[in-house]
């Protein structure tokens, strides 16, 4: 065993001995193509440049008007009650809870009606036929009487001050939607869940803090977020999904409304605990990102279109440079290495890059724990190596496959996440004036 290690480090040493400037450039490109540490570096830059906004205020969130918590779920009998009860002991009260059962075949609606009888839910509506999450949320917001909607997944659980904190950024007149921090609620479910717990803990608090600071936040997770009624109704609510949350945010930005992020409002959501389910979920997310940006809202990319906004260019360019190009560049670079390098050298390069990815995640996790003041996140440190390899290589390949699949076959049109009856209607619905109630 010792000889193997000494041999390995011998190769590494030899490699660094033989490094030349072309090699260094290749290394730089490889690093760039693999994973630019945009969150880690960006967060450090943000920290130096300007502290994040914590939206502290002495005002009561009730000054914002009435607010409604919206929950739509399909077959959520195991989760809906926990979700509703987590709302019952929030630091703020006096909000209404609207639940819509989107064609469940289990006891979801029975539980909702029981909770309604108990007074924990203010309205519960059952849809006999599943119409998808987007239409269910539209139904719920139609019933809601609040000036602010807080959208919540049925399998989400909130920290006791999450509702109050997610509303604080709305005191800023330029912010109409707020994203809270979504963390993994079931990290004990296995290594797949633990990897996602790390990914969520790094990506959401650090990434969105940076994006929020640069006013380039394009995502309010469907699991937890707040919307002013004004912005919601201006874009006509959600369009047919999937990817409805990203689509909604893009349209809200395009309509001139701002999106904010608050890291201290924390929601926990259950993540897939089986690797194949996770990969399928990522297929869907990546497809939706391409579909929404470059198909549904393509008019926004045309400088001659009235829908074009200069403010939308940075995040589009960032997506192209930091997501699309590295995804395609990495396999090409890997193939090139196979052609010009010896096997030992390729192995050494990948090993070094893997160590770099791990270090990157390690640092990100530390910063996230510090930002959220949640040191229990550090329990995930032993899982960082697995996460780095899984996210860095496996999910990157999945993303590559998805991009190709979407560009070539428009696979998102066949996504069964939305019911069949609405799949063919994934078009850019031009918002009309929402009929006044």
């Amino acid at each position, binding site marked *: 065993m010792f000889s193997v290690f000494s041999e390995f480090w011998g190769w590494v040493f030899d490699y660094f001995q033989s490094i030349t400037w072309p090699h260094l450039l290749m290394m730089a490109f490889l690093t760039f193509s693999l994973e630019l540490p945009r969150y880690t570096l960006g967060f450090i830059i943000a920290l130096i440049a300007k502290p994040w906004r914590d939206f502290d205020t002495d005002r009561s969130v009730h000054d914002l008007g009435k607010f409604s918590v919206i929950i739509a779920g399909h077959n959520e009998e195991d989760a809906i009650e926990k979700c509703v009860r987590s709302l019952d002991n929030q630091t703020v009260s006096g909000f209404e809870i609207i639940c819509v059962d989107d064609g469940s075949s289990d006891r979801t609606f029975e539980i909702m*009606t029981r909770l*309604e009888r108990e007074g924990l839910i203010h309205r519960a509506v*059952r849809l006999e036929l599943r119409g998808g999450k987007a*239409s269910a949320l539209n139904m719920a917001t*139609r019933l809601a009487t609040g000036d602010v909607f807080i959208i919540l997944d049925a399998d989400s659980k909130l920290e006791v001050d999450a509702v109050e904190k997610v509303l604080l950024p709305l005191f800023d007149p330029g912010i109409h939607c707020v994203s809270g921090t979504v963390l993994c609620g079931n990290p004990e479910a296995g290594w797949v869940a633990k990897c996602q717990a790390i990914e969520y803990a790094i990506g959401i608090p650090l990434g969105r803090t940076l994006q929020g600071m640069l006013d380039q936040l394009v995502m309010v997770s469907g699991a937890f977020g707040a919307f002013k009624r004004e912005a919601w109704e201006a874009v006509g609510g959600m369009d*047919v*999904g999937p990817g409805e949350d990203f689509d909604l945010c893009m349209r809200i930005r395009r309509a001139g409304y701002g999106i904010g992020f608050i890291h201290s409002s924390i929601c926990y959501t259950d993540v897939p605990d089986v690797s194949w389910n996770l990969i399928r979920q990522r297929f869907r997310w990546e497809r939706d990102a391409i579909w929404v940006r470059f198909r549904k809202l393509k008019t926004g990319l045309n400088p001659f279109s009235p829908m074009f906004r200069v403010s939308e260019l940075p995040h589009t360019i960032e997506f192209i440079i930091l997501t699309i190009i590295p995804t395609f560049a990495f396999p090409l670079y890997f193939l090139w290495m196979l052609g010009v390098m010896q096997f030992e050298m390729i192995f050494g390069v990948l090993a070094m890059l893997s160590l770099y990815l791990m270090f990157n995640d390690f640092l990100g996790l530390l910063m996230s724990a510090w930002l959220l003041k949640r040191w229990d996140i550090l329990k995930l440190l032993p899982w960082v190596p697995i996460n780095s390899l899984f996210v860095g290589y496996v999910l990157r390949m999945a993303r590559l496959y998805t991009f190709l699949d979407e560009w070539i076959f428009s696979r998102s049109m066949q996504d069964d996440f939305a019911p069949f009856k609405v799949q063919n209607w994934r078009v850019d619905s031009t918002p009309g004036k929402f*009929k006044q109630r």
Partner: protein
Amino acid sequence: MLYSRATVNGCGDTRLQHWSGTAAHDGGTRKGQMTNNVTQIATLGLPTLVVSDASAQLESALSSSETAFRVTALSSYAEANAQISASRFASVIVDLRGSKNEFALLLPRLGNLSPKPHVTVLASAQMADTVRAMPSVDQVLEGIFDTAALARAAVPATPLEELPEPETPGITGPQTPELENPDTSGPVQVLMFPRAFSSDFMPEDVSVVAMGTVRPEVIVLTEEGVARKLSMSLPKAVVKATPIIDLTGKNRDIADYTTTLKGAAGLEEAMHHIRPLVDRMRDLPDAIFMTEREEDILLARLVIRNSGIDPILRPDIQSTVFVRENLLFEDFEGVAKRLVDRKLLKAEVFMKTNCCPACDSARLLVREECRACRSTNINEVAIIHHFRCGTQAPETDFKADNGVLECPKCMNRLDAFSVDYDRPGSMMICGDCGNETGEAAIGMQCLDCGVHNDAAQMKPVTHYKYTLADTAMRTLTSAFVDSPTQARPQTDVGAVLRNFCREMDVARADFTVLLLKLDPNGDLRREHGERGVRGTTHLVERNLRETLMWDTKIVHWAGGLIALLPNAASSDVDAELPGIIAEARRNIALNFDPQISVLDGAKVRNMVRQNV
């Protein structure tokens, strides 16, 4: 302690004489509380003992568990003839049915209760002198109360001739605790209640009996609303088990057969239907009709009718589920449950109903209501889902001015159902407050008391129907055939001993009394039940009669047997006793371990004197 004689306020019956032990007792409230119960008994003119607690501060505490304790305590002291009913106001009414013995036995026991109860003695005018003259009452009261005060307060009873004639002479007259058994080979003994109809013609094989003479085999009700009077006039086993014919058409609730034909024609028709019941009744031992055990009575009733208990749906009663036996048995469900536990009845759920939590009525108006304002003005509206833009809202939102469906979000027309849109569900919109919700609330309004409640607040009640087990008849007959003493009223031991002492004093003879407690530890009862204890007692009695001298008297008491041995020395009895018991054990299959006390004459005389 002050004694006074007064008429019970609120009874409205001047025929009552009232002795009251009132120790600084504000009787007004209590009298008001007890009035109903007292009135019920008072109107029957029966001597009555009303026992309540004199301690005002215990009044509220006694309302539940203490009352139950006291009723239990009194039940064990009062003899079989005494009817005990508990009011909900911590008072107990003991209807002594004119028995001097029970009166005498019960009163000292009451004096021993702690805290001491407040005792009120009520007696009909006809019985007043008798009750007052009872030496045992005076003796007993002497031990408890200030008899001097009682003597000062006592005044002669109202003369009988000054009182109005009783409305129903058959009921208010002296009771017959024990009825003569009918001749089962003769004509059917029919009791016309409350009065016989006058007719020259009577159906064949029918003989009319007078109240209080022979136990009737059929009771014929000739007037409306006499059920309560009937229950007070006959032993309860007779009332509850005997077939009842209603010739008025107004007593359907308790009658086994109702006809509107008047007189003998009606009776003849009814007898035709009732005859099988009478035949089955005649197959039962006579002792059954003297029992006080509700389980046996219910079982006998069902065996006679050869049927189970099938509830009937009746909207005219509060519970809507009518069970005839509920009228006859105070705790019918408890009695039935005990029979079910003994596998003599089989219970099946007949129906589960929801009752008003305020008045237990099942007559409820069920209605859909708005969850917010409880208005019934709610309308169901379809929900439309527009596929194109994902809008989902009530149909009213999609209705354009020209009547076509138009999406409020994208303004497109909705033309083809299931292509452009569908209706995945519906919701309720309140016409009064505009509240929108998925499902209306279910509210219920009680038609009896008017209270309005949510459906979830209703009180669920389960009604059962019962079928008779195959073993019921066999169990019932075997329980009584081998045990003729079972239904015998319990003996007043004090009176028996007093009389025996008196006899022996007159005869100037020595005597010995043998007390046998056959099952002191309750082992026999646990292993073989009540039936085993009764059978063993009977066999031991037979054995003693065969072994002891011919002039030995053997009487039953609550715990076993008392043998009165005239002209016998206690030492002789002590010597012979082991042999006698060994002989009895050899003859009896069941193991029993009696507790035996041998009392010589002097000791017994002393006990009688001390009224122990």
